[in-house]
Structures are given as C-alpha cells and as structure tokens.
C-alpha cells in the first residue's frame, strides 16, 4: 500500500499575539522573527492517520509539501515521525497560489508518484482555514473524498472512516484510492524521538520544481481583496435592578433587544 500525505508549512498559529503583524499594502502576514513556521496542525493529524495504517497494515508513506520556500528542518519532522520519503514541490511559481491551484499542483505530483492508495491531508490549513484543497484534489484526481475524519480503518480493499458531524459521527465506506481529510479527533502526531531523527537523515528527500511536473494551467479562482486585523471592541453594560429578579428580567429584555435571545428558548440570531 502506498499512502501520500499532503502537508502545508504555515506560520505558527500559536505565535505570541504580540508577534503577529501584517503588511496591509502587500496584503501579507509578516513572518515573525524567532518563531519558525510549523506544519499545519490538521496535517499533522493526517500524518498520524497514515502512520497508524502503516503500523497496522504496512505501507509506504510519502509526504509532499508545496510552496515557494520550504523549511527543510520543519518538514523533516515528518520523516523523523515515521514517514518514508519527503518530496518538496518548491518553485517561485508556487508562491501565493490559492486552494484550487494548490490542489492542481499536488494532484500533478500524486499522478507522478503513481499507484497511490490513500491521500491524506488536514481538514483545513491553519493559515487561511479554507478547507478546499483536499476536496478539490479529489475532484482533480477523480477519486472519492471523505472529509473531517476522526478514525480510519481498512478491510477487504475498502476504507471505513468515522467522520465528525455536528452532533456526533457517521461511518462512511468507500473504495480505494481516495482522499481523506483528517480532523484533530484523530489524535496528535506521535512524539519525535532521537533515533527517529537519526533515521530521518538517511531517508530520501526530493525536490521537484514546476518544470518536473506535468502541470495544467492553474489560474487562481480567488483574489485577495484586503487583509486587516479585525478590531474587537468590548462594551460592558451593567444592568441594574431593585431586586435580582428585576435585574434578571431586564437582562433578558436587553438580550432579546440585541437579538441574542428568542422567546421560547431558541438560540436567536447570532450577531
């Protein structure tokens, strides 16, 4: 079995708040000094899903990552965790591409690898939170896609996936090959160990440029119009009353006025 895991290098979503700065003119987030990029957390869950299948059934796990400048120290972590091969799709042409273009480039690389049974990726990336790439990649490859997976099992050439829903989970079964996008419920990526790091040094790392891939034109379907840090304003209003009951009644009226409470216990319109 051959499994491909698509991981994205993103700015650390857990960077200190004071380190987060944007360049509104250039419409980009300024990479903070002293805070390295990381693998998008849901993509780490996706890698863990692949490694668990490898543990149980035996498989070759290939990690691919795409971008204009990729940090090898960051992405080599995937090899140290247990992946067998790392392919970096690194080219200036891959800078600031949108989700659909990303899906197209990744699909080209997967076609080039060939004979892939499962393609894992995170449910969405921690930078733009679009959640499109996995599904668009499945569309491009013409294979089924199961999203928001929290458990993946394989039996008799079929894959069974528990996927998160708003009020629980559902089990979806499909044939291979397929794309599965992983949720955090799947579990954290295993801790990297020193022997794992030593082993990673001997594992293959390949860099493919745009010219190495049979790329269809990938015009961006989205355009970044503006980028700004939203202002959060909090206003504190004290509701007075002669008795607690009166204050409570006034509070309910005030919430109702704001559309946050509906008579009859409904959740009301969110503002």
């Amino acid at each position, binding site marked *: 079995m051959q499994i491909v895991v698509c991981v994205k290098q993103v700015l650390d979503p857990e960077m200190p708040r004071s380190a987060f700065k944007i360049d509104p003119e250039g419409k980009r987030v300024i990479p903070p000094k002293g805070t390295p990029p990381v693998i998008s957390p849901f993509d780490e869950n996706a890698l863990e899903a692949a490694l668990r299948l490898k543990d149980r059934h035996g498989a070759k796990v290939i990690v691919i990552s795409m971008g204009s400048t990729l940090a090898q*120290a960051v992405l080599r972590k995937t090899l140290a965790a247990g992946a067998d091969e790392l392919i970096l799709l690194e080219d200036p042409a891959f800078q600031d591409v949108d989700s659909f273009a990303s899906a197209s480039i990744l699909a080209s690389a997967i076609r080039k690898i060939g004979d892939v049974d499962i393609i894992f990726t995170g449910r969405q990336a921690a930078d733009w939170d679009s959640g499109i790439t996995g599904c668009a990649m499945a569309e491009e490859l013409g294979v089924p896609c199961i999203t928001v997976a929290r458990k993946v099992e394989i039996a008799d050439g079929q894959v069974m996936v528990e996927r998160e829903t708003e009020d629980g989970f559902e089990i979806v079964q499909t044939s291979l090959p397929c794309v599965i996008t992983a949720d955090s419920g799947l579990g954290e990526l295993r801790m990297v160990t020193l022997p794992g790091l030593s082993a990673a040094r001997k594992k293959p790392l390949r860099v493919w440029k745009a010219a190495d891939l049979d790329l269809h034109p990938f015009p961006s379907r989205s355009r970044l119009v503006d980028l700004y840090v939203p202002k959060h304003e909090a206003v504190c209003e004290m509701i007075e009353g002669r008795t607690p009951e009166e204050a409570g009644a006034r509070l309910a009226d005030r919430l109702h006025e704001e559309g946050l409470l509906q008579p009859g216990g409904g959740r009301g319109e969110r503002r």
Partner: protein
Amino acid sequence: MILEIKDYLDDMRRCARCSLCKWPPLAQMKSWRFSNNCPSIARYNFHTYSGGGRMALGLALAEGRLDTITDEMLNIVYRCTACGACDSSCKYNAELELLWPIYSTRAHLAGMGYYLPEHSLIIDSLRKEDNTLMKPKADRGKWAEGLDVKDLSKGEKAEVVYHAGCLYCYDPELSAVARDTVLLLKQAGVDVGIRGSQETCCGSTAFQLGFQGEFTKFAESNIDDWNAAGVAKVVTSCACGFGIMKSVYPLLGKEMKFEVLHITQYLDDLLKQNKLKLSRSFPARVTYHDPCNLGRKSETYVPWKGEGKKVLGQFILREPEKVVHRGWNGIYEPPRDIIRSVPGIQLVEMERIMEYSWCCGAGSGVKQTMNDLALWIASERIEEAKSTGSEAIVTACPWCEQNLKEAVKAAGGNLMVYDIVELVRRAL
C-alpha cells in the same frame, strides 16, 4: 520578537576583527594553559566560531549576502553555548554587543525555519509538556512529594515562591538539591511555596536557541502566574532560569510585581541574618565555578537605540548614553561568602573567574544536542579546577553540576562536584 538582527548592524559593522573576544583581557590572564575564554573558538580554531566571526556571519545574513544557509553554517551557529565570555572580553576594549547579535542571528534563522533537527525535540517537548527534557508534564511536581510545603497552584498563599526549574524537577539525582533547598528555607522560617505540577519552564533554552516566540509565551505566562499568586519574591536554584528572568523578562514590558533572587543570594542573606547557622565542619579545599547565567549574563539588559557620533576622528560617542553590560554586576560574592562561611573549608580560586569565567559547556542546548562538545568544555574546566589543588568544585547551577559530574566521570579521578546547597546542608 524582543530585538532583531538589524538592531545590531552598527555593532556588527564596527567589529575590527581584533580577536580580543577570543581571550580574557591581558590584565586578567594568568597562564598560557588557561588563557582561552571562548569554548567554541578554542575547540574549532576557525574565526567564524569566535564572537567576532559570528558577528561577520550575522552581518552577512542581515545584509542578505548569503545565497543559501548550509547545514555546516547552522552547525557553526549552534556550536556555541552563548556563554557571553566574548561579550565581556570585547567590552573591556571596544564596547560592542556580541552576545545579543548571536541571539538575534539565531532568532533570524529560526524565523526562516533554519535550526538543527534536534532542536525540534526540545521545542516540541516545551510546547506539549512545558519542559525541555521530553518528560511528562504530570511528573513535574513529583520531586516535592512528601514535602510539607505550600502548593500555590492550589490557591495557597506564600511570600516566596521557589521555582525549582526543569532539571531539578526531573533529574532524580539533582532533585534532592531542590528538596534540600525547600527544607533549608523552611528551617530558616521562610514562608515558602512551590507551584508543583503547574510550574513551567522559564523559556531560557528556547530563547537562546532563537525560538523567541516560544520563549515569550512561557515568560509572559510565568510573570502572570507569579503576579496572580501575589508572591513578593521568586527564588530559583537554576542559574539559567535566574539569568533569563533577570536579564530578559523585564524586556517584555510586563509589570513584574515580585523580586527575582537566586538561591545563593537568599541563603547568603539568611546566613548573614543568623537565621541559618553552619556549625558542622567540612574540611576540604574547594574551588568555585561561576555559572555564566548567574554571573555575567544576569545583568538586566537595557537595549540601546540612538546615534553614534565620531569625535576627534576616532572615538564614538553615543547619544543617548548607552548602558554597557560588562558582566561586572553578576552574582559573584554571595556564593563565595556562603562557601567561606562553612567551617573548615578553604576556598581557592581558579584562573578564569567571575565575568571571565570559563563556561561549563552545557548552555544553550549544547548539552542536549552536542554532548561531545559539552563534555570537552567541561573537561577543560575540570583541568583548571584540578590545577588549584582542590578536592572539589562547587557550583550553583544544575546544568553546570550535571555536565561537570559527567566530565569527571568520563575522565576518571577523585574531584568531587557539589551543589552549593548540598554544601550548606552538610554543614548545618
């Protein structure tokens, strides 16, 4: 980000390659054998490994003159304990910043995703388990099991919080020192508490490796926790923790409603106030190793921004006046006074002491990532200690103690390594 590499362009450009960063000042040099001050240049003997060479590398990086960052370049950057000896030596003559450009170079590289693979183990452990030693967070408070001491994380109040630090919490041999410390403080009537399993790393290793974002989170969280606990004093036995809390925490701009003290300062005060009395004799000839973070690196760093004007064609006058950190205001006398107060003990000094002290080799993640270098540096210190005719070397930092002990074990011989608290406990 506390300070960026561009803030040190002037210092890096003014480095004249005089190489005085490689040795203690001539007036402080006592023999050829122990005339080095920088472990990295002493070991690898190639200019880039020295403070000045690191300035040249940092400058090339800041000016965008490096096409690629190679693995060997990263090895050079991190084969350095960031002990600050180069910084103290340079300031004897030239007053350039050396240590902070080293920190900033690392932060710049880390921001681009360049670091050693082993660093990811340390940082992952920090993010998941709140310590750099890859140990479970839940086990952090185990060192204090059975000790009758207040736990501030459970809402109890105390005047002093004792911050044990990662190594004292998790190393079974060293945690005896942390237990001894709490017992000593209680014996002296100090209203002391700990934070048990809720204590977290000080962030020192992350900062020194260039992961300043990770450091900032831990530092801010510690300051908030100690402020919220309402403690008047934070006392720590870990010199690395003390150094970072004194020198870098104030730069974060958060109000610190507490005083930070190293255990040697606190014990020295207790002894001088007769709250502890050392009566048992400890007849031994010992020498004292100054931990870098307790000494030259513990001065509160005051960043300078201004203009340097050349006068008379050669002197640079800075406007506004710059606070120059020469390492003179480190904690040097309290540990020596404690040792001298032990009956029967004879304290003899090594050649390289105080702000010109030779590093133990464990700092800045070198112990965890390049143990061979760490042990070589420590073995040099062991040789220097032996040259004084001492039977023991005393120190006041768990990293120094652990590394020196390992080096003694590797080399063989009878030299003992003591933590200063252990000495006090024996003499009570």
